[in-house]
């Protein structure tokens, strides 16, 4: 350390530096380890000279570092990826609850609502399998209709099916509930064939070239009821 730096450091410690010079010295102290060590040593020896004969407690060499670490830990932001993931899950969960509630209100128990879909209608235009292009340029996925879950539709409750379908069709980033394009196409082909045989299904396939998130759904039955 040269004489000028020495003098400025001592003047700063004494509060004798003017505004700009004091700011410069503070910046240097914050960034130069050698200067910071000198600052600490000068204060420590001054304290020992003033109080050493009384018997003193000496802070361990790492005391200041531990304080800094504790402060850094306390102020560390939550990891972004983790926070983002939970935020998406939260949003998705809320959306699922909303859809569920809406479905229950609209359709109610099977056969009691005027808008209830007749059980014999059997199939829905939900067999459409819109494609989703992931923005990362990754795999191409096609949402899998709810009918393809669990080995075919249950005829016992159409409202339940609708609810299940809407829940399943909610796209949750990071959640692999979606089938790859090949799988979905194969299953769609099988399902379309069997459903068409069973109830004269109007199966329309179309894609969303860049759609993300919830897809549009339209309800309709083979017999034209809304």
């Amino acid at each position, binding site marked *: 350390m040269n004489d000028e730096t020495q*003098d400025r450091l001592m003047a700063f*410690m004494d509060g004798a530096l003017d505004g700009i010079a004091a700011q410069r010295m503070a910046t240097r102290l914050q960034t130069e380890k050698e200067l910071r060590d000198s600052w600490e040593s000068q204060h420590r020896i001054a304290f020992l*000279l*003033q109080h050493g*004969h*009384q018997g003193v407690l000496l802070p*361990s060499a790492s005391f200041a570092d531990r304080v*800094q670490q504790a402060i850094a830990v306390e102020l560390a932001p939550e990891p972004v990826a983790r926070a983002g993931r939970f935020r998406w899950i939260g949003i998705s969960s809320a959306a699922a609850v909303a859809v569920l509630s809406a479905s229950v209100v609209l359709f109610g128990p099977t056969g009691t609502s005027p808008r209830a879909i007749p059980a014999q209608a059997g199939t829905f235009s939900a067999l459409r399998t819109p494609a989703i292009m992931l923005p990362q340029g990754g795999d191409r996925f096609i949402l899998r209709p709810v009918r393809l879950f669990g080995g075919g539709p249950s005829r016992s409750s159409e409202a339940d099916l609708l609810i299940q379908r809407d829940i399943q069709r909610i796209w949750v980033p990071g959640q692999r509930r979606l089938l790859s394009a090949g799988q979905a196409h194969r299953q769609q082909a099988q399902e379309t064939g069997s459903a068409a045989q069973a109830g004269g299904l109007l199966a329309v396939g179309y894609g969303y070239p860049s759609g993300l998130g919830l897809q549009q759904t339209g309800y309709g039955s083979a017999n034209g009821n809304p």
Partner: protein
Amino acid sequence: MKRTAGRGQQPKGEDSGAQSDLLLVQRVQKGEKQAFDLLVRKYQSRVLNLVGRFVRNPEEAEDVAQEAFIKAYRALRSFRGDSAFYTWLYRIAVNSAKNHLAAQGRQVATSDIDAQDAEQFEGAERLREYDTPEGILLGKEITRHMDGALQALPEDLRVAVTLRELEGLSYDEIAQVMECPVGTVRSRIFRAREAIAKVLAPLLEQVDHER
């Protein structure tokens, strides 16, 4: 050797150091954490020994001192400079020590003393648990090494640092006594402390190692 400042009298230079404290505080308030590190390094010995007046176990005292600094950091945004930073910090340290004792179900050894009193508390030496045989020996060793280092200093350095640290004179007053510029006084004191630090370094390392 007479030790005026050692009896709790604040060296006059510390008052003027309040300006640099305020500058560092303002930097911390702007979000520069490194500025707080400088304040910790400056006041760690004082705060630790202040806490040690209440919390007699050295390890506990260090933990409480650390906690006091963290509390000070949290509260620094509300520091308006109505009092000197060290007065404000010492108050936090005293409260931290008292709270620690209360949480432990222990009686506060000294009632209703403020930070300034705590530093000057004459009976403090009798209260300290760290006045163990090892602690006493260490204190004597430090004193012996410091006295030896002081005696080994060139006269101009020895006089300057003695007037400053033991007699509590300001730089201006020392410059008048020694008939030299203030800058020369600063340089002499700086070099004297560095020389003493070199002598004490092995002793301080030993303390760290034993912990």
